């Protein structure tokens, strides 16, 4: 890997697949979560996450040290998702098939998580792929609108609009459910 490549916050000598394993450890969950927000489907997300890291491994020499590895990977992930969609005509977004990750969670807590995920999933299903992407990158990855615009290849103003739209729609969906 290029000298000075960082995985998250730490530096390490660049040499071979062992180093890339550190990249996977540091960023797999974030990439998975991002792709899950786009597709809502576990199996497709697993495939796309693997595809993302395989692409990253092939292109690791093109990574510019000093820039954010996470943003670089998320851009590859977004492209992988959209490429797959173009080949399959669509990746139908389905309401998220979450399951409680912790088997120790009590029944009431698991039900609460399932209901919450159901509402969020339904709200997100109404949004376009790009709007979902912007929402996730802002709410979870804490990227600025400028960074999101660069990653998604849109203008900063468009990114801001998508976030406005996502927040509006989701709040409306949640308030309807509470009535």
């Amino acid at each position, binding site marked *: 890997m290029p000298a000075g490549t960082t995985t998250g916050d730490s530096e390490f000598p660049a040499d071979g697949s062992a180093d890339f394993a550190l990249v996977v450890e540091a960023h*797999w969950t974030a990439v*998975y979560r991002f792709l899950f927000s786009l597709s809502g489907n576990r199996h497709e997300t697993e495939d796309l996450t693997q595809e993302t890291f395989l692409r990253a491994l092939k292109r690791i020499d093109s990574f510019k040290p000093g820039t954010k590895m996470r943003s670089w990977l998320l851009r590859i992930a977004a492209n992988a998702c959209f490429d797959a969609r*173009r080949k399959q005509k669509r990746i139908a977004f389905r309401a998220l098939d979450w399951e409680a990750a912790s088997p120790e969670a009590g029944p009431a807590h698991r039900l609460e998580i399932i209901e919450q995920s159901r509402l*969020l999933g339904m709200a997100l299903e109404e949004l376009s*792929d790009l709007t979902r992407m912007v929402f996730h990158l802002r709410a*979870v990855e804490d990227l600025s609108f400028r960074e999101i615009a660069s990653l998604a290849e849109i203008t900063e*103003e468009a990114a*801001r609009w998508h976030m*406005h739209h996502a927040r509006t729609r*989701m709040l409306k969906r949640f308030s309807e459910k509470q009535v």
Partner: protein
Amino acid sequence: MDCPQVQDWLLRMEAVDPERCSSPEHAEHLRICTACRGLITELAALEQNWRELPLPASALTAKSAFLSTLGSQAPRRGRAASSSPRVWFRSAVAASLLLAASVSGLLMLDKSRASAAANVVEQLIDWNLELAENSSPTKRTNIYGDRVDHLRLELANAKLPGDDRAFAEQLLTNASWLSQNDDPMSVADRFTAVADSLLDKIDAARSDGNVKELRRLTRLYARVSERGIEPKLEIVLASKGLDFEHMRRLEKVILKDDQRRQKLQALLERSPEASRKEIKRALGLPRKANK
């Protein structure tokens, strides 16, 4: 300062945090309005809920499985061979992008004019592509309905030269059509016309020595080609039993694409020697060994 204004501002904020409010009017309104403060709480809770949702347990098993195979995945040097039969689409687009980035020693650009055209036209193109990529008629109707008024207003307020305005108006018309139609051949036709217009503008920008505009336009061109034309042609090519009319239209689109590719190649050949090496790398041609 009323609630709808403040709430609209809150919904557009990067971080929904009244402590980071730069406007005294907004800050004063938030100090006294419980409804708007309530909105802040709701937005924060919404995003927090999303962040805290647990991932499927299979996420971690998939990671372990991938890591166990990682040792056999050797990083490959150079460019992987493309398996796409239409590598010439992407090669021409990639070449045009690096050409735009390599041109040097050119004239200053008209910032205000480029900025106005950039913002509105780019938004319109992205909107068109988003419509084309959604197969659901309901979603397309929503995407169209949600943005049409805003973009019409932006277009009305933008100071655009005649040809840019005509182009933007056409994109607006396209959006209306795309919201109601998804026949891949017809969609490819529409975006072919957009690509033709963009290529004319690329040529004009190169002639004017406008580097920034050249880069911006080649990015847009690549987007239109990769997302608006190629995927639709794939669908058409994959469908069986094309009638004569579809075959004729398909041939026209492919011919136009070939003509654009040749034009891009010609632009490429006019680039300085120093940039040709980078362009060859983008085209996947073998590099010379380092000395």
